[in-house]
């Protein structure tokens, strides 16, 4: 499976309506800074788990709060 990229995560945010096409994306900024609320984050992580075949436990969910951190975490999990 290919590594998960920032663009993959951004596409899932657009697909789940948490972001719109053309929105400015700050990949290293907290999700909330881009207007992404807690419920949107639930949906994002559900899609990440379904599409990338990884399980993200609650303790990691709390820590992962930027697009780049999520992409790196998923890539690392896939590599194991």
């Amino acid at each position, binding site marked *: 499976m290919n590594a998960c990229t920032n663009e993959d995560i951004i596409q899932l945010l657009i697909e789940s309506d948490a972001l719109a096409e053309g929105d400015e994306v700050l990949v290293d900024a907290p999700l909330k800074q881009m*207007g992404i*609320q807690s*419920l949107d984050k639930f949906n994002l*992580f*559900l899609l990440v788990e379904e599409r990338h075949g990884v399980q993200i436990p609650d303790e990691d*969910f709390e820590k992962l709060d930027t697009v780049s951190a999520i992409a790196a975490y998923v890539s690392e999990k896939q590599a194991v």
Partner: protein
Amino acid sequence: MIGIEAIGTYLPARRIDNLERAAGFDCDEEFVENKLGVLEISQAAEDEDAFSLAANAVEDLRARTGLEMDEIEVLVLVTQTPGKLIPHVSARLHGEIGLTDRCACFDISLGCSGYVYALTVVKALMEAQGFRRGLIVTSDPYSKIVDAGDRNTAMLFGDAATATLLSDRPVFEIGRTTMKTRGASHRELMSTDSGNLHMNGRAVFTFCAQNVPPDIREAAELNGVTVEDIDLFLVHQGSKFIVDTIRNRLGLSEEKMPFGAVAYGNTVSSSIPLLLAERVASPESRRIMISGFGVGLSWASSLLTRVA
């Protein structure tokens, strides 16, 4: 054939404004309006409880239908917030509304899937026993167990009760039902040792998003129709976000799967009959899919078909 003839409802008068208190929960108007979808929650008064809410719902049903209480052969009450544990709330209600000694009477302990479960159980019981009139009452004043400072639950749950008359003169036939449970996940939504409600929002959301859409498709198939054949989908009103997610996963419009709890919140076992009550007298929806999901974790879906 036993089915739904009429529905009475009761919402307590008190309302708590979520927009006014949003900042105190570290959220904004956009979150309240577009994610929770609940602008106000209904809240029982200090002296109201599951029993009194239920009695008010039955009174509304009686006012709507002129129902004679000596005709009722079974009363089933769905609640998880009974207040006093003994006796069962339905026994107190039985005495209050003047049912006869020959009326069977028991409670069902289920949450947001409770109405769909109860319809199926009571219909089967009535048909097996040859009963002609029965009542299903839902009553859950969750405000009694919600921690007022808990962001996950305090802005979401509202108090309500409903009373559904099942009879041999139905408006809606009750179809076959999916009835499911995942007890291994019960800790995600449960009362704690202190008695307050705990909800793992992420776990409950994921459970609903992954399990309810296929369950609705399964219930349609069980009843010999497809999702496209169904006029209206009344699902448990967990939050606007969860209803939107289920709707998107099924590819349905907001008109077909509405969110209608804006003015009172997530009323647990009462959420589906509150929406259904408005539709009993309006003939435009012939087939209605109902789906409840939550505590247990449990979920159930069934098809209601308007009797010609």
